C-alpha cells in the first residue's frame, strides 16, 4: 500500500500510469522516498524505471496518478517546473557542451549577470562555493572535453545543485564509471545525504544498491512489486524480486577440457590514434574448449588489441595466429572466413544495423554465402526461416520482432541477436568484448550460460571485460592486461578481487597458494570428484586438480600455464604430489596450501605495494620533468 501523503517524504508518486499508444509502460506504480535518504529504483531493462523518473522530472506526463513533493501536490509539466520543485536529474548520457568549461556548463541557462553580460567571476565563485561545500572536487576552468567521464558526472551533479536541487535523480550513474570512480561517487552521495538532500538512483546493479541505498523500490514490467529496506535483504532476494524468478548469481561452471591452441598471439604491437604503442609485446594463447578472460582497467590496450585481432587496425609488429594461420594486417573478412566470431563491445555501433530488420541483422555475417544469396540474390525465405529459428533458440523478445527494426529491441534482446548470429557462424574462436554491458541480471546469466555452452562445444572463447566479477566467474584462466601487455595469468578460482585489482594496477603477485584461502577455493574437491568419474581417467583428474590448485607450477601437458611468476615450494610439492597420487591430488594440494601462507604473504604484499609506489613516484617525476621541458620550450 502506498504511504500516506506526508511531509516526511521528499517524493511521493501514487498510482502512476503511463501509456505509449496501446503499450502500458507503467501501471499504477507508486514510489515513496523518505527525506534525506538514498532510494534505489531497481528493475530489468525496459521495466519502466527511467520512464517513472522522466515523469518525475517532467519529461513525460503521467496519464494517471499524482505526484507529491514534500507532502504537497505538485503539477510537474516540464523540467523547468521540476527544477522549481527542487528536483535535479543526472541523465545516463551526459548533456554537456564539450567545448565549454566546467563553470560555463554549470551556469548555462541560469547565468549570473545583468541579462546581457554574464558575470564570469560571480559564476566561477558560485561554482567554487558548491564544490567546496560538498567536496566535489573539480577544476572549474577545465574544458569538458579534457576531463574524465567521472568528472563529467560530477559536473552534471553540480549543475543540478547549482539550480538548488534538493532531490537528485541519478540515472544509472555507475554505468560509465571505473571501480574507483564508483567509490568516489558513493562518497559524494553520502556527503549530499548528510547535507539533507534526497537521492534517487536508477540501477540494475545489485551490489551498488547494497553499498549505497537505504531503501529500494522494485519495478517489474511496468508494475510496482515492492519497496524494501536494503539492510537485511540479500542480493539473491533482490534479484528474484526484480526478475520474478530465482536467479543464479554465481555462474555454474565446470572444469574446462582444453584442446588445441586456437588463438596464438605472439609479441604483438599495436599503435593507438596518437601513434603510441598501446599494445606492447603481447603474448596469449587461447585453446579450444576454454574461456580465457582478459581483465584490466579500461585503456590498457584492450580496445587496440581487439581491433587488431578483428583486423580493424593494423599492428606494427608480432603475429596473430588463428589455428596456425596468420590473420594480422588483413581485412576483417579474412578472420571471419577462418572461424573468428566477435561479440563487439558497442552493440549499437559495431554489432547491429539498427535501421535494418531483425531478419537482416541475423544474416549480417552469412548473407554472402551461397546458402543465403545463391547467385547474388538474397534468399529471403531462407533468411526468415534462419532468423525465426535464432529468435526462438535465443528467446529474443518479442517473438514477432523479425520484420521490425533491430533498434526497437531492448538492449538484452539486441545482445541475444548478436550472440545468436555470431555463434551461428560455427566459430573456432569466439571473442566476447563486454558482452553483458548494460544488461540486467537475468540477461547476464543468459549470456554467461551461452559462453560456457560454446566452450563445452569446443570453441575457444576469449572474454574481455571491465567487470571483475564477470571475468572471475566465467573464465577458466584470467589474463590481466596492464599497459598493453599481459601482466599475469591466473587459473580460475586462484585469485581474489583484491589481488586481481592490484595486478590490474600494474603490480605483480607471486602465486602464493595462501591466497586461495579466500573462499573461492572450495571448488577444487568437487573438481576432483567429477573428474574421477567414469569418463575421465586418473591422470586427467590429477592434471585438473593440479591445474586448479597450483597451475603455474603444474607441467601438465594438456593445460600448460603461461606467464608463471615465482612459485612457492609448497605449490610445487602440491602439484607434484597431485600428479603422482592421482585422485587424491587435490586433497594434497588443499592440505598443503594454507600452511605456507600467512606471514610471508603480508610482508611480500607490503613490499610489492612499496615497489609500486616507488615506481609511480618515478613516473610522476618523469612526467614533471617532461612538462617542465615543454613549458620551457613554449616560453
Amino acid at each position, binding site marked *: 500500500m502506498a504511504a500516506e501523503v506526508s511531509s516526511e517524504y521528499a517524493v511521493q508518486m501514487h498510482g502512476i500510469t503511463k501509456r505509449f499508444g496501446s503499450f502500458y509502460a507503467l501501471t499504477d506504480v507508486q514510489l515513496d522516498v523518505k527525506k534525506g535518504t538514498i532510494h534505489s529504483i531497481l528493475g530489468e531493462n525496459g521495466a519502466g524505471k527511467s520512464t517513472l523518473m522522466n515523469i518525475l522530472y517532467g519529461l513525460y506526463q503521467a496519464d494517471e496518478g499524482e505526484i507529491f513533493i514534500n507532502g504537497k501536490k505538485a503539477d510537474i509539466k516540464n523540467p523547468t517546473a521540476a527544477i522549481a520543485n527542487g528536483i535535479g536529474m543526472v541523465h545516463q548520457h551526459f548533456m554537456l557542451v564539450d567545448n565549454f568549461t566546467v563553470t560555463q556548463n554549470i551556469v548555462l541557462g541560469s547565468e549570473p549577470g545583468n541579462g546581457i553580460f554574464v558575470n564570469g567571476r560571480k559564476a566561477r565563485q558560485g561554482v567554487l562555493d558548491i564544490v567546496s561545500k560538498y567536496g566535489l572536487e573539480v577544476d572549474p576552468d577545465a574544458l569538458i572535453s579534457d576531463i574524465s567521464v567521472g568528472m563529467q558526472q560530477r559536473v552534471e551533479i553540480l549543475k543540478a545543485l547549482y539550480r538548488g536541487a534538493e532531490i537528485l535523480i541519478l540515472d544509472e550513474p555507475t554505468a560509465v564509471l571505473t571501480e574507483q570512480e564508483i567509490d568516489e561517487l558513493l562518497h559524494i552521495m553520502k556527503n549530499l545525504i548528510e547535507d539533507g538532500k534526497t537521492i534517487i538512483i536508477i540501477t540494475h546493479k545489485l551490489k551498488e544498491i547494497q553499498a549505497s541505498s537505504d531503501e529500494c523500490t522494485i519495478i517489474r514490467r511496468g508494475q510496482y512489486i515492492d519497496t524494501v529496506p536494503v539492510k537485511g535483504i540479500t542480493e539473491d532476494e533482490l534479484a528474484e524480486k526484480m526478475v520474478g524468478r530465482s536467479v543464479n548469481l554465481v555462474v555454474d561452471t565446470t572444469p574446462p577440457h582444453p584442446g588445441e591452441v586456437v588463438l596464438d598471439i605472439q609479441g604483438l604491437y599495436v599503435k593507438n590514434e596518437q601513434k603510441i604503442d598501446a599494445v606492447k609485446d603481447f603474448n596469449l594463447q587461447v585453446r579450444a574448449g576454454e574461456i580465457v578472460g582478459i581483465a584490466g582497467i579500461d585503456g590498457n590496450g584492450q580496445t587496440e588489441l581487439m581491433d587488431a585481432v578483428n583486423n580493424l587496425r593494423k599492428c606494427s609488429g608480432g603475429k596473430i595466429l588463428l589455428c596456425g594461420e596468420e590473420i594480422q594486417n588483413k581485412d576483417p573478412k579474412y578472420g571471419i*572466413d577462418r572461424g573468428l566470431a566477435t561479440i*563487439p563491445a558497442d552493440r549499437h555501433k*559495431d554489432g547491429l*544495423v539498427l535501421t*535494418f530488420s531483425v531478419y537482416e541483422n541475423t544474416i549480417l555475417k552469412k548473407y554472402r554465402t551461397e546458402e543465403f*544469396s545463391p547467385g*547474388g540474390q*538474397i534468399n529471403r525465405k531462407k533468411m526468415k526461416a534462419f532468423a525465426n529459428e535464432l529468435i526462438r533458440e535465443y528467446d529474443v523478445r518479442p517473438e514477432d520482432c523479425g520484420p521490425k527494426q533491430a533498434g526497437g529491441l531492448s538492449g538484452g534482446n539486441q545482445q541475444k541477436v548478436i550472440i545468436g548470429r555470431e555463434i551461428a557462424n560455427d566459430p573456432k574462436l569466439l571473442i566476447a568484448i563486454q558482452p553483458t554491458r548494460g544488461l540486467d541480471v537475468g540477461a547476464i546469466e543468459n549470456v554467461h550460460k551461452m559462453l560456457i555452452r560454446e566452450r563445452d562445444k569446443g570453441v575457444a572463447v576469449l572474454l574481455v571485460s571491465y567487470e571483475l566479477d564477470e571475468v572471475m566467474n566465467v573464465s577458466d584462466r584470467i589474463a590481466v592486461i596492464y599497459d598493453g601487455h599481459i601482466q599475469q595469468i591466473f587459473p580460475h578460482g586462484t585469485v581474489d578481487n583484491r589481488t586481481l585489482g592490484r595486478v590490474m594496477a600494474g603490480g605483480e603477485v607471486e602465486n602464493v597458494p595462501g591466497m586461495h584461502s579466500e573462499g573461492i577455493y572450495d571448488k577444487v574437491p568437487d573438481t576432483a570428484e567429477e573428474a574421477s568419474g567414469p569418463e575421465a581417467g586418473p591422470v586427467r583428474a590429477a592434471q585438473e586438480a593440479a591445474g586448479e590448485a597450483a597451475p603455474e607450477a603444474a607441467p601438465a601437458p594438456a593445460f600448460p600455464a603461461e606467464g608463471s611468476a615465482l612459485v612457492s615450494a609448497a605449490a610445487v610439492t602440491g602439484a607434484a604430489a597431485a600428479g603422482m597420487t592421482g585422485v587424491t591430488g587435490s586433497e594434497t594440494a588443499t592440505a598443503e596450501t594454507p600452511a605456507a601462507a600467512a606471514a610471508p604473504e603480508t610482508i611480500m604484499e607490503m613490499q610489492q605495494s612499496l615497489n609500486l609506489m616507488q615506481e609511480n613516484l618515478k613516473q610522476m617525476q618523469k612526467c614533471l620533468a617532461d612538462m617542465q621541458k615543454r613549458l620551457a620550450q613554449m616560453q
Partner: protein
Amino acid sequence: MEESLMKKFFKNPFVLTVIAIILGFVVAGLILLLAGFPPVESIRTLIESMIGRPKDISSVVIRSTPIIFTGLGVAFAIKTGLFNIGAEGQYIIGCVVATMVGSMLDFPKPVAILMVLLSAMLVSALYAGFVGLLKARLGIHEVITSIMLNWIALYLSNWICGLQFFHKPGTIGMYPVNDCTYTMILPFWKRTEEGRAFMTKHPFLQETLGRTDVHAGIIVAIIAALVISHLLNRTRKGFELRAVGQNIDAARFVGIDVNKSIVHAMMISGALCGLGAGLYITGQSPHTVSTLSAFENVGFNGLSVAFIAFSSPIGCLFAGLLFGGLLYGGAGLQSKVGAPTEIINIIIGIIVFFCALSYLIPQFVERLDSSRRSKKERKKMKGGEK
C-alpha cells in the same frame, strides 16, 4: 486498436508525401491569392495544363524522364549513405559524352544506341566514382567534392562545346548526334506519308507521337527503377551497400569492404545520371549540348525528386512525373492565367519543404490524439464530481 491503426496510417511514407503535396498546393493557393490570382481557378489551370490533353501528358513524361533518372541516382546514393549532390555534374558529363560519341558514330541502330548510352554511363560513373574514391581513401566528404566537380563539369562542357572538332559552326552548341542513335519511337516513320495518314486516323497518336518527341526513356526509367529497387532490396550487393549506408562501423565489423562499397555506390549513382543524360541526348531535340551559362538544374531537381520520394526508387517515378508536370504545367499557368512561373517554383519548393517536415506529422497526430483524450477524461472527471 483504432488509434494505432490511425497512427500507422500517418506513419506511412506514401501518405505523408501525399499530405505534403496537398499542403504544398494549399499554401501555393494562398500565395496565388496574395498575388492577386484566383487560387482555385489557377490550380485547376495548372493541373489541366499538366494532364488536360494527350499532348500534355506526353510532354510531361518527356520532361520528367531525365529528372527521374537523376532522382533515381540521388535516391540510390541516399540509400547507401551518400549524399550525391553531384548528380548535376554527372548529368552534364553524361550529356557531353553522349553527344561526342553519338556525333561520331555511324553504326546500325541498336549498336549505336547501346554504345552512346554505355559510354555516357561509364564516364558519368567514373566521374562519380572519383568522388567515392576521395571519400573512401582520404575521408573527404562527398558533398564538398561533388559540388566542386559540378562546376568543373559545367565549364568542361562549355570548353568541349567550343572545340573545333565538336563545335557546329553558326550555333552555340556541338554537332548533334547522328540519326542512328535516336531513341525516339518511330521518328522517321511518323514523318512519312504513310505515317501521317495513319496518324490522322488515330487522333490520340497524332496528339502524342505526332506532336512530341516520344522516346523510349520512360520505359528505360521504369525498368531502371525496378532494377535498382531489386538491387537494393533483394541482392547481396544491395544488402552490402545498404548496410554500409546505415551503419558503416557495423558493416566493417562483419567483414564488408566498406571502401569498395562507397566507390561502387557512387559509380552506380553516377551511371544512372549518365543513362538519363544519354537518353535525353538521343531522345529529345536538339540532340546536342549547347554552351551553358548556368546549371540547367536537372541534377538538382533530382535531389528534390529523391526527397519527395523518400528515396524509394519506385517512388522516384511518381515524384519525377509530378516534378516534371509542375515544371511543364507552370508554363501553362503563365500563359493562361498570367501568373509568373516563379509561383511554380514556389509551389515546388513548398512541397519539398513539407516533405522534409513530414516526419513531424506523426508527432502532431499523436499530440492531437492525446490532448483530445485528456479532454475527454477531464469531462468524465467533471461528470463524476457532479
